[in-house]
């Protein structure tokens, strides 16, 4: 991120005014939610084969999610010289959904669940528009950063008793900062059965197991790998490299790589793990849920943008210069 850009985002509350300036002439639909208005912008080629749904949500502080939506929209509508923009717009139809305003009910995120059961973003209003849009790729950016005091609410399904795990993790500087991605794509039952065996994905003698190799070669699974690598090349590190505490929040998914999770088959079968899982169930599309876990706002925005950009570029096969691929 350039210093100018950081300065611009210093006041995140101003992003909505910037957004309205960008969206002149774009197709847009306003949704009214308990958390205020949210807008869906459509741009690109209506007849394109790839239909990419990018949605930004936040548990509490909507500013960073709003800034991500703004930056995506700005980069797709500006008239700067760009390597990819015209190709991307010619080959895709985009739906970009902004975060809601900050005056709705907030979510006190205590222990961020890998599968949030659609708490963020999967509102009926959104699902109805998704049914009309029929996406082929869903990128759901979830900002779980909360400035609220961590007061556990009784009855909340991620439980009050994870305070200890959270504090222990923070004391040891282990997890819950950085970015976590939950990937939704079809996995054959055979591969699924083998990958949930404990230790099946752990390298043996420095070499990946057959299951890990099969997963790495999965055509849709590669999207997450390449997007993650792209994010690294953009200068954003993955901080989720330590051992993740085995809490209720992480037991519903298989950790396929540092910071990368795939829902376990039992939860995949239910089909409502998060927005991307619902989209996979309904439309069979690939989904990438990007969970931003604390950290400075500018860094969260940068991480989400880099990952979204990497996912789009690799989805369209535009990145031909990556020496590692």
């Amino acid at each position, binding site marked *: 991120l350039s210093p100018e850009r950081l300065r611009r985002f210093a006041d995140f509350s101003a992003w909505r005014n910037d957004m309205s300036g960008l969206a002149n002439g774009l197709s847009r639909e*306003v949704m009214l939610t308990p958390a205020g208005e949210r807008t869906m912008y459509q741009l690109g080629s209506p007849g394109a084969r790839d239909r990419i749904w990018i949605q930004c949500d936040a548990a509490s502080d909507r500013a960073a999610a709003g800034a991500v939506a703004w930056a995506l929209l700005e980069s797709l509508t500006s008239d700067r010289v760009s390597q990819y923009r015209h190709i991307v717009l010619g080959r895709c139809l985009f739906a970009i959904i902004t975060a809601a305003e900050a005056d709705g009910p907030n979510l006190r995120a205590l222990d961020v669940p890998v599968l949030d059961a*659609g708490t963020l973003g999967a509102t*009926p209003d959104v699902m109805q528009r998704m049914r009309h849009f029929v996406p082929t790729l869903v990128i759901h950016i979830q900002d779980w950063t909360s400035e609220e005091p961590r007061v556990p609410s009784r009855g909340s399904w991620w439980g009050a008793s994870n305070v200890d795990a959270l504090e222990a993790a923070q004391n040891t500087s282990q997890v819950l900062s950085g970015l976590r991605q939950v990937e939704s794509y079809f996995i054959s039952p055979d591969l699924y059965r083998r990958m949930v065996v404990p230790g099946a994905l752990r390298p043996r003698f420095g070499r990946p197991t057959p299951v890990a190799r099969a997963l790495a070669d999965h055509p849709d699974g590669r999207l997450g790998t390449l997007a993650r690598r792209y994010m690294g090349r953009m200068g954003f590190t993955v901080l989720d490299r330590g051992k993740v505490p085995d809490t209720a929040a992480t*037991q*519903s998914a298989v950790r396929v790589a540092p910071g990368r999770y795939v829902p376990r088959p039992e939860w995949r079968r239910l089909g*409502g793990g998060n927005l991307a899982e619902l989209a996979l169930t309904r439309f069979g599309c690939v989904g990438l849920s990007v969970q931003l876990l604390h950290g400075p706002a500018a860094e969260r925005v940068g991480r989400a943008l880099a990952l979204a950009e990497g996912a789009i570029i690799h989805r369209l096969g535009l990145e031909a210069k990556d020496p590692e691929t």
Partner: protein
Amino acid sequence: VIRLCVYLAPVPGGMALVAPPEVVEQVRAVGYLLQRKPQAVRVAVLTPAEVGEEVWREHIGDFIRRLTVVAGLPVATSERRLSGRWVAVLATWGVLLLLAAGGNLMQVVGGLWLALFFPWLRRVYHGSLERWARRPLTGLALMVEAPAVELLVHPGLTRLQGLLETNDVSDAEANSRVADACTSLGLIWLEPVYRALSSRVLPPGVWAPIAWQSASRSSTGISNLASEAAPAAASEAATFGSTDPDVAGAPPVQADSGREGVEQRTSSAAI
């Protein structure tokens, strides 16, 4: 037939499908039951009077999927596990005990326990706990395949709706008043939901606001292309390959006194 109830609750600004934590617990219990003995499950949507099926029918499928996921998630416990590092230290200590046993039987037994049996028992114990926690998911998967859904009118919800319509106060105050009235109207499980909303916190359990969509509006047509879009004003940020290298781009019906007044209005229908 097992019957589960969710609420279509009136809230300031619209309606919301709500499953309070108690309903989530019920769904989890039903999951265990279905896993052992598959049975038919019917989901009853308790609504105020004069609310048509068209308001919620389209969304109930996704809501039930979300509800089953929440019900199937492992419950957080305060159990403190011995970390893997400590287990490795104990196992190493056990090996050292074995090496230095020198014919001492008790030391051999202790070494075998620490080096072999304790890690094995620990792994088996935690594995069985996790398998037990995942058991309801098999049953819940049967439930989401083709749930039968029916509509029931709840007079308490009708009263709540009337209360919300007559109040001329702020949303937080209205939610607080409605929460006060919940118990007397046989909607004791909805009280924490309204309390949470009055304090601007997402309610516990599962909820999906649905009637706000009727107020949504479209500002322009659908098919405006990006090429027709007005260029952005000033822009120092650039993603997508910018040339600038610096940027990147029933209720348990037992608890509800209003149960007697519940009236079945339509027949069930599979989604």
